[in-house]
């Protein structure tokens, strides 16, 4: 449906230097799916989204929607944003303050010169869908944050867009409302079967909403995958670190088997781990393991074939209500583990740690985080 190919977007900054905001960005979004661009502030998410919208003119690349090229540097195509028929929700919502709720939503239909009857029908339909139908006459500036957000969404939906673009639509809401709106957004997206590109720096949003996620770093996409794949099998250290919490243990690969697992020599001893792309014998790697994947026990654990079991001491504990944060020490290495509050081992006591091999992900450290997409190859 949407296909973005080797997209580059640059800004000329004030002093003549060039900011490379999006570099070699490529991805596909199938019909009706929600695709998320996730990454820290300044990594180029908004830039990529705006390039798709046509609000920014890329320097190179191809963008196609349903087989129609809206941008192509090789063929010299650039379709103006107002001719693309994409709906967009801005981070600031960009609600027009001089219009009321109805007028805001009616605007896209008015510029398309639809009849009054039809405008009214369509506007009321989306306003009902976003549950704003009781506020039709309200001044747009007199809406609450959540209502403004719905209004912005309604305005983007009313034109029945081919593609929906959302730039951090929930970031201006407070925590409770954000959760509610997230569910709402998901419902609407699935209900209308909207092909959507969603930008956020919030991993919870990304993981819970998306069919697929692209993690961005410094203008590059560093990994694309389903939420589960991104979380459980990060292919590089940046992704493992940025999405969720994790423990990193450095080491060297001693053996690799064909089935995707490997042996790593670390400060914790030999670990059985999952091998990601590029992991070979003698490669320098880090092993990433999530705190919830460290099982703690006061009794000695008998390891199965796929298990790593280590003896550690309790170093510190934080009580956080629903769970306990344990810091356990092995030699000089401190690992973070998440345990049930019923575990009451005192600080300083020995404790056994089990990590399943498929939860320990070995990631190469000597490649740049953008390695998977080999951007350097492209530049040559």
């Amino acid at each position: 449906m949407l296909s973005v190919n080797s997209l580059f977007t640059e800004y000329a900054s004030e002093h003549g230097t060039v900011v490379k905001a999006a570099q070699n960005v490529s991805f596909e979004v199938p019909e009706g799916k929600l695709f998320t661009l996730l990454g820290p502030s300044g990594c180029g998410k908004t830039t990529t989204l705006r390039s798709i919208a046509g609000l920014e003119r890329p320097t190179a690349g191809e963008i196609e929607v349903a087989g129609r090229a809206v941008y192509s540097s090789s063929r010299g195509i650039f379709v103006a944003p107002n001719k693309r028929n994409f709906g967009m929700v801005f981070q600031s919502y960009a609600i027009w303050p001089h219009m009321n709720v109805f007028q805001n939503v009616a605007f896209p239909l008015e510029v398309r010169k639809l009849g009054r009857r039809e405008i009214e029908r369509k506007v009321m339909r989306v306003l009902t869908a976003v549950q704003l139908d009781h506020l039709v006459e309200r001044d747009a500036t007199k809406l609450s944050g959540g209502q403004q957000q719905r209004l912005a969404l309604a305005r983007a939906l009313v034109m029945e867009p081919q593609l929906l673009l959302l730039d951090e639509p929930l970031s201006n809401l407070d925590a409770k409302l954000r959760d509610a709106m997230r569910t709402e957004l998901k419902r609407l997206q699935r209900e209308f079967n909207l092909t959507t590109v969603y930008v956020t720096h919030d991993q919870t949003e990304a993981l819970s909403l998306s069919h697929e996620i692209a993690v961005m770093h410094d203008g590059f996409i560093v990994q694309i995958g389903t939420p589960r794949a991104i979380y459980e099998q990060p292919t590089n250290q940046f992704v493992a670190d940025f999405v969720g919490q994790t423990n990193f243990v450095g080491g060297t690969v001693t053996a690799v088997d064909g089935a995707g697992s490997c042996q790593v020599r670390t400060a914790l001893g030999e670990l059985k781990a999952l091998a990601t792309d590029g992991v070979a014998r003698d490669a320098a790697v880090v092993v990433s393991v999530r705190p919830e994947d460290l099982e703690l026990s006061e009794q000695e654990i008998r390891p199965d074939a796929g298990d790593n079991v280590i003896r550690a001491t309790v170093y510190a504990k934080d009580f956080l209500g629903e769970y306990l944060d344990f810091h356990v020490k092995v030699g000089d290495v401190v690992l973070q583990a998440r345990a049930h509050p019923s575990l009451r081992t005192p600080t300083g006591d020995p404790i056994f740690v089990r990590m399943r091999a498929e939860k320990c992900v070995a990631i190469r450290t000597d490649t740049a985080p953008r390695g998977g997409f080999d951007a350097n190859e492209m530049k040559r």
Partner: protein
Amino acid sequence: MTEAVGRWGPGSHAERARWRFDSRWVLIGVPVALVVWLAIVPLTFLFWQSFLTPHTAARPAEFTLENFRIAYFGGETFGLFVNSVIFASGTAVFALFVGTALAWMNERTNTPFKKLFFALSIIPLVIPGILFTVAWMLLASPKIGLLNVALQGLFGTDYVFFNIYTMAGMIWVDGLHYSPIAFLLMTAAFRSMDPSLEESAQMSGASILQIAYRITFKLAWPAVLGSLLILFVRAIESFEVPALLGLPVGIHVYTSAIFNAIHQYPSQIGLASSYAITLLVLCCFGIYLQSRLSYQSSRFSTVTGKGFRPRTIDLGRWRWLAASLFVLYFVVIVLLPFLVLVWTSLQKFYSAPSWDALSRLSFDNYFAVLDFPGFWTTVQNSLFLSLTCATTIMLVAAVISWVVVRTKIPGRWVLDTLASMPLVFPGIVLGLSIMICYLYIDIGIYNTIWIMLVAYVTRFLPYGMRYVSTSMMQIHKELEESAAMSGASWSMNFRRIVLPLLKPGLLAGFIYVVIVSIRELSSSILLYSPGNEVVSIMIWELWQNGQYVELSALGVMLILLLFVLVMIAQIIGRRFGIAER
């Protein structure tokens, strides 16, 4: 040692409190008294005078309502009012149209060279109104105007293409002259608008024109109306254009009518006063509406944090047209007027450019001007007045702004309001009230240079205030408080901490006041006396004598001087980040 004990002793505590109370009273009292004296007292005299008959040797002044009868029900009344309103609204609309179009192109499109253009937009400020008017007279007067002569030569006719001595001509000149202000006002308005409001319209499928009309201008509407009112007030109080272009052909507006009433025998001071009061009321009304509007427009200003980035609309090939409009504008507002003055200043007698005339170029006029009897006195007067005025204003403004911005003395808003009041006074009305005031209160400054100083200080105090209070707000309050904690008295605090920190703001404001004082004409015209002329008056007199070539030479020198001053002010302003105007 004893002193230290005494200072903290319980007895002196009360003393200190009383002293503090007194100093506060002085702090607010003295500036209020000064500002009342400057701004309110002359107005009272103006009001009183409007009820008196002319005072002549034969008959003393007596009470009358005749002035208001003539002003409101006289034969010319209707024409005067209509002319003034047509002139002012025409000027305002024209200036705003030009200014808005330029500001939109500059802020919201990808017109090439717009950075350069924005930097140049300050330059028109260096051409004083009287010179701008004279230059356009030289360009577009029906008989000698260069544009007419050139076009007549081109088409071989004697058809008059442009006639500057008409209402349209007056609006053209005054509108152009105020268009930079419109440009700055609208630039500010565009900058305060979130561009994503336009972008979301674009994503909704709206074309550039639809966005411009339905979003951009609708949102900018309160700002547009506000600017229109400011420009209307500026235009209705402008003096140079009506006096130079309107008076010769009998197109009268309030300002020129006031001037005319004074310059007949016997002087119709009472009549002039009633005109002045009418004009003042119109101005106040305009400013009142404007302040109401600016309250309204704040309702529209959307607050956004992240995601607010200036983005420009791609004009495609049209951007070269936009760039050429910029160039055309610059030609019309700076290049043509300046060049025509330069050309004229190099001629023996005024003539259109030709090979013949080219061979007669000389700097004689410049030497002639320098040799005028009284030229150096005039220059001295101008320098003395502008420097003294700027110094006084910056000192007074520093104290007043400090009281207003920094202290919590009750009633300080009165001071603020009073000190910015003269902003509403048309120059000629101020000149008239001060003239009347010191005619009655004889403290020996009437017919001296000091009366002009009083007028200048009153008129430009609000400008000085704006500079100082802006930079005062940028100074962190804790700097002062830490000085107070280390034991400094407020006067030492002010001298040692506040003044030095304010220096860049004071300096930029100082230069700005110097510039506007040197250009000042409409107050001076009623207050000068032989021997006390200033440069702008000298230009005025040269114009009245028809000495256009000498006038041009003087004008060119003045423009160059002002240009240098503006550049210095710009550099200081940029270095210290002081907002322009």
